[in-house]
């Protein structure tokens, strides 16, 4: 069964069409990359999939069900655009989310996650007092608190230093869940994603493996990279 199925999704902001008949499906356990230029509609798409933005048209199912309470308990999201409550501590925030999802042994779960992302030392700090790279990891801990079956990561690794980024990638690889992943770091996308959808001006223009995309550039490039692919697509040469 597909973990996620998106059918003919469209979204307009006023007269601007941000998503135009987007369809794809993600297999259970797959890490699915979503790439595209700034303004392509990636965040819009993820916001619809996590149920905080209403589409104008289309249908989404999660393990065959539409978005209901039980599905909402099985998904989670981490986004570079958001933060948990700034005025309370890291630990307190995670405790709130643990309670929302009725996590068993919340204290242990929180400690485990904080250790995995190397931020156990800042657990008592207020979120407004921590650095942006630390905040990024707090968001990831929040996103994993309910051991989601589908995880949405919207530039969730932005702003991490190379060493921490490596740790985070390792952690993401270890996860036993379906992931929809957006990032502007091509090496990371290539390392983590099984398949990659390219979105341009609200339209999906391809869903392939990184290898497949690179082969498309063999005529014009020697040793093409995913970055070359991205640029060719953004420049509408592919």
């Amino acid at each position, binding site marked *: 069964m597909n973990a996620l199925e998106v059918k003919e999704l469209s979204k307009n902001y006023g007269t601007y069409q941000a998503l135009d008949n987007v369809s794809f499906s993600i297999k259970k356990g797959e890490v699915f990359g979503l790439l595209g230029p700034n303004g392509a509609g990636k965040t819009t798409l993820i916001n619809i999939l996590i149920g905080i*933005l209403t589409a104008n048209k289309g249908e989404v199912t999660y393990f065959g069900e539409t978005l209901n309470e039980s599905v909402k308990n099985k998904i989670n999201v981490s986004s570079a655009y958001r933060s948990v409550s700034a005025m309370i501590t890291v630990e307190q925030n995670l405790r709130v989310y643990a309670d929302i999802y009725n996590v068993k042994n919340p204290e242990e779960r929180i400690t485990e996650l904080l250790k995995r992302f190397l931020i156990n030392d800042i657990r008592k700090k207020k979120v407004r007092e921590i650095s942006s790279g630390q905040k990024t990891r707090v968001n990831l801990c929040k996103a994993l608190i309910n051991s989601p079956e589908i995880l949405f990561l919207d530039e969730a690794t932005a702003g991490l230093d190379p060493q921490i980024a490596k740790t985070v990638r390792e952690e993401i690889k270890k996860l036993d869940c379906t992931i929809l992943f957006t990032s502007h770091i091509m090496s990371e996308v290539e390392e983590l994603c099984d398949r990659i959808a390219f979105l341009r001006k609200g339209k999906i223009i391809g869903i392939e493996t990184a290898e497949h995309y690179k082969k498309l550039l063999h005529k014009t490039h020697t040793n093409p990279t995913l970055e070359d692919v991205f640029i060719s697509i953004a420049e509408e040469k592919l």
Partner: protein
Amino acid sequence: MKLHRIRALLRKHYYLSTAGISRSFDMLYWPAFGLIVFGLTALFVEEQGADIRIFLIGGLILWVVFERLQQDINIYLLEDFWSGNVANEYATPITSTERFIALFITALIRSIISLGLMALLGYTLYAFNFFNIHPAGILYALPLFLTAWALAAVVAGLVVQHGIRIQMIAWAVAALVQPIAAAFYPVSILPNWLQPIAYMTPLAHTFEGYREALAGNFMLGQLITATILSVLFILIGYAYFVYSENKGKENSTIAEN
């Protein structure tokens, strides 16, 4: 000191002043409002001369409870807007009703603490006993709380639908309705045309009823009217809140915060 920099700031203030009605509102409504409420109170004091302490201190305590309750409900929601936590929370299974109830409980606890403090101060400083009322008078708490909740729901709905650019309304709305709440004077002191409007809100009935209870009388009819009206208000407030959450999901206000 450079004049051009002052001019730059003045230009900014001018842009801010003309960007929306809220700044002009500050300039016009508050002064007018202050004059009206205190003018009406003064009128009443002149006419009555009686136990004015009951009206002023009792009215103030009840009013502050009402206002704190409404503001706290809204401020706890605004906290999530300030932090950028709104979208995160709306992505969880939390429902409108759950959010609505949790906000109310927190605010209720806080306003009861405020009430305790004010009652204590009123008693020790001014020998005014807030609880020295007809025992059934305590029931007026119900319409008071429900009305604050209803008003907060409308404000919360406006914020969820339009975003924090209209957050000022959270602080202003209680005062907006204050003139017709009859917190510091009886409804009869209001101009004739305003009296029926005041009686369409649960607040006027609540404050009048509470004052009667302070005088040792209990008016069952008034309590029932206040309660029925407040239930009506909370149903409307809740319906609007749910509606605005849906709007906020369509227009992206929730996703952006």
